[in-house]
């Protein structure tokens, strides 16, 4: 018995096509190949190829294969200070950033009023380039900048924060600027990671008597490990690339690895040495990535 009248002229069989032939099974190239291929080809052309060319450039002297560029790189008076500064920067900035980002994420986790507004503001630096960040803090740290002006209002003498005669305050200024700019990235990653952690674990822990700091240490942080791992790798590699911030704040007074690459390439017109330094940076990045992956390896995962 049918209560849904069919439209006049419509035949049930119209829903199926009697003349359709069954598709051949497994015929032709699979769909996914066509979808992936363009991007894969593009990436090979723009990543793999330049990488090889770069390695070639670094090891090519006027007479073919040679380590001359490497030697020149190492002999350059700015090179080792650049290495030291870069390493120092990473060692100082990255832990500070993580502590700050974690603190920020924990603050928001308590759901204060205006949490949405806070989130918006705290995330703004994510979209600010390192050059802009450098310029922003330049207005603060420069001799006639806002910091010294504020101090003057309080009756304290100003200080040449960015002068090359004061390497420590110069370094501190770059640290502050980097902290300001790049913490948002870690912040977002940590917040996202926290959102994925069910409240159950926390609640269970407090039922069993764990206080705030204990819960933080034994329940929250271990669960954040995957996020922190990702964030660490990303941030360290990005920190290895710090360049424009220091350039904006200190000019060439604080050499950094990428800054030196830039110098060798544009000012000294020597792409060979520039590539050599770039390769050093690559090696350090890979080391850092591998190091973090091993250190923060998830030992609880089934083998």
């Amino acid at each position: 018995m049918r209560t849904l009248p069919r439209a006049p002229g419509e035949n049930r069989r119209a829903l199926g096509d009697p003349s359709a032939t069954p598709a051949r099974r497994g015929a032709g190239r699979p769909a996914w190949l066509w979808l992936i291929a363009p991007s894969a080809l593009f990436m090979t052309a723009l990543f793999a190829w330049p990488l090889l060319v770069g390695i070639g450039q670094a090891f090519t002297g006027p007479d073919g294969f040679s380590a001359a560029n490497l030697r020149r790189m190492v002999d350059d008076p700015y090179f080792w200070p650049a290495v030291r500064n870069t390493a120092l920067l990473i060692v100082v900035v990255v832990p500070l950033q993580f502590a700050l980002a974690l603190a920020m994420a924990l603050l928001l986790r308590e759901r204060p009023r205006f949490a949405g507004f806070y989130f918006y503001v705290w995330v703004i630096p994510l979209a600010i380039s390192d050059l802009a960040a450098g310029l922003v803090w330049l207005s603060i740290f420069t001799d006639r900048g806002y910091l010294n002006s504020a101090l003057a209002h309080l009756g304290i003498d100003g200080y040449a924060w960015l002068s090359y005669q004061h390497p420590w305050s110069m370094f501190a200024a770059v640290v502050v600027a980097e902290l300001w700019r790049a913490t948002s990235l870690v912040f977002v990653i940590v917040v996202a990671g926290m959102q994925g952690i069910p409240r159950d674990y926390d609640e269970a822990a407090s039922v069993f008597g764990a206080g705030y700091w204990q819960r933080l240490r034994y329940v929250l942080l271990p669960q954040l490990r995957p996020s922190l791992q990702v964030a660490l790798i990303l941030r360290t590699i990005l920190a290895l690339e710090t360049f424009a911030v220091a350039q904006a704040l200190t000019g060439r007074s604080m050499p950094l690895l990428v800054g030196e690459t830039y110098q060798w390439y544009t000012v000294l017109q020597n792409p060979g040495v520039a590539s050599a330094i770039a390769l050093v940076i690559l090696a350090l990045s890979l080391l850092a990535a591998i190091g973090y992956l091993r250190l923060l390896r998830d030992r609880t995962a089934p083998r």
Partner: protein
Amino acid sequence: MRNRVGLHLACLAVTAFVGVPIYLVALAAFTSRTALNEFPVPLGPTDVSTETMRGFLATTGVTGGFLNSLMVGLATVVLTLVLGAPAGYAVARYAFRGHDSYQLLLLLTRALPIVVLSVPLARVFLRIGLYDTTYAVTLLHTALALPTAVLISSAVFVGVPREQEEAATVFGATPAKAFLRIVVPQALPGIAAVAVFTFVLSWNEVLGATILTLNQRTLPAQVLTTLSDSPLAYRFAGGLALVLPALVFIAVMRRYLLNIWGTLR
């Protein structure tokens, strides 16, 4: 952390740390040059003038840089989406051999420093005659943005249940129609987020753009290369010009940020 007052104070302190410098650079950019030369510099908007900004914008290369950044940004978005969205769909829907290795490869490329690419790329572009063009910068930026674009868009497509596409095909839609009518409308917000993210990345990129161009500079490259020559005031103005778009970008992207990072693991 039961002390709510302490909590609010801490939040305000962080907000001040983030927000005050932005206020200050805006102030600096809108203070007249004479006022900037005084000491101490006024900390409040007492001597507002557009002189500095106007001077900066009138400097040769600035408007050109702005336009170049815009063109490169838009072109990068288009190219990245054209290459990346289909790949993201494939990763989301098909369990093909090499599925996991492809994703791993994408993650690894994000670990590659830009500088390692830029120098050799400059040489490659020189050879094929693309050096110092916006095309070159577009290609570099696309290469930088593509891995993230693929990963995010695959997460977006995973968010549209496969059963909906299947239902569409049972009820008469061809696979293409099912994609257009069912997947696209739901994926659009996420894909839009990818677009904004890509644009921001391109807009802010400094090093590669500087190395790859001489005359056709993007705004950041322009500011960077004239840094040592420009008067202090113009540097502040440049800083503000680079920062302002960020405020807009984040306002747009706020919602998607957590989704993006949450699904990237």
